[in-house]
């Protein structure tokens, strides 16, 4: 028995390689050498907020119910918080009304973090007088209570990025009904269909992870996205070679990868 557990040699090598490439891109090559392709849904956010200002209506931003304490859901909530900060920056600049509803079962630990992000964004634009945590973060008893909020506020834009369960459908429908432009994105695969069907712009699954790099243009984050893409190209290559080899009756590569 070796030091590496049986059947995990290739997996371990992959993990080390992926992280090594990321480290290489960040600290040796530098992230400013890479570009991220245009993401229509994110560009649409600014436009949607602009429209809200023209119409004199509010903007809704929500980060779903994943919270920050559970490994599986936290990544999506972090991406959501990044978008929240971005939206707050724009609404502070353009003088639009921003609401970030939260609900009880939706990871209340995000509320203090969201409050800080909002305050920072408004402070950066010198609009701290328009910042009011109580009003900007309304608290809903349950997810379905959003219907009443949507009817009352009638927002012009609704942005949802985070980890969503059944509320994806309720929110998309509630704000769709009052005619808001909707941008949706989640890594919960079985909720993407509603965003795909009901939203004007959708971020499919993993697309929400590069968002923080895309918005901030932070070279370190851009580098990690590039590292990820390197391995997407490698897996594409593996897929083609492997499928061709198996077609030719050779299972060497599949055997190797299961080691």
């Amino acid at each position: 028995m070796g030091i590496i557990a049986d059947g995990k040699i290739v997996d371990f090598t992959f993990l080390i390689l992926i992280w090594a490439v990321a480290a290489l891109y960040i600290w040796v090559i530098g992230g400013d050498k890479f570009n991220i392709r245009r993401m229509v849904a994110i560009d649409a956010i600014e436009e949607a907020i602009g429209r809200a200002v023209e119409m004199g209506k509010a903007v809704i931003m929500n980060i779903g119910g994943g919270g920050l304490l559970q490994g599986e859901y936290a990544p999506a909530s972090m991406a959501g918080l990044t978008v929240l900060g971005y939206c707050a920056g724009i609404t502070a600049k353009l003088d639009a009304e921003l609401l970030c509803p939260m609900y009880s079962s939706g990871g209340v630990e995000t509320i203090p973090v969201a409050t800080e992000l909002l305050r920072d964004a408004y402070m950066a634009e010198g609009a701290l007088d328009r910042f009011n945590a109580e009003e900007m973060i309304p608290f809903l008893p349950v997810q379905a209570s959003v219907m009443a909020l949507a009817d009352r506020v009638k927002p012009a834009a609704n942005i949802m990025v985070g980890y969503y369960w059944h509320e994806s459908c309720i929110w998309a429908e509630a704000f769709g009904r009052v005619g808001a432009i909707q941008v949706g994105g989640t890594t919960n695969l079985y909720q993407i269909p509603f965003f795909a069907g009901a939203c004007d712009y959708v971020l499919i699954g993993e697309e929400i992870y590069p968002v923080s790099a895309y918005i901030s243009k932070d070279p370190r984050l851009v580098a990690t996205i590039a590292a990820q893409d390197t391995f997407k190209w490698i897996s594409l290559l593996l897929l083609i070679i492997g499928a061709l080899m198996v077609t030719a009756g050779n299972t060497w590569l599949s055997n190797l990868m299961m080691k």
Partner: protein
Amino acid sequence: MISTDPSIWIMAFFTIAITTLAFRDNPAAKFAEHTFLAAQAGNYVVMAWRNINQIGISGLTKGSIIMLIPLLFGVALYTRYSKRYIWVSRYPTALMVGIGTGVTVRGFVEFQFTQQIVDTFKPMNSFNNIFFVVTVIVCLVYFVYSLTPQNPALAKPLGYISTAGRYLMMMAFGASMANTVITRVGQYAGRIMFLLYNWLGLG
């Protein structure tokens, strides 16, 4: 026969009250909504208490002093309600995020990367297998954000592949959406069964 059991009547009232929430906001729905929130939060506390008691406190009384550390970490979570000591809650958060990230990431390589790729090595001897492999490749191209060739001769076909990927994914989402309808119908039918059979005594 319609039920005479008061608890069945309470259950029926709550079932109908929550359903009316979908129609429009009303006092009965608001009442049910608040009851739900309170009962659910209460249930969380009760269940959590059992866990804390079983692992933490009973461990401590059995003499493992080390259990004091996670208990303190747990209590420290609540400092996030204080502006001054919010930083203390970073310790338990750091612990949870560390465990969570580690436990999740370690499995992903094999679970969602190598095993999935190996299973896509299909012999290309039937339409279905060829379609399968091509679909995986085409959809994966959609998720490439950087490191794309800038040369238009290559970038253009790649753009087409990426669009094709989106089309194929939309097909899958349609099927997924229909599956959700079926789930919700099945779930709600359970409530209708309760109302018909247990409350109204029909069927």
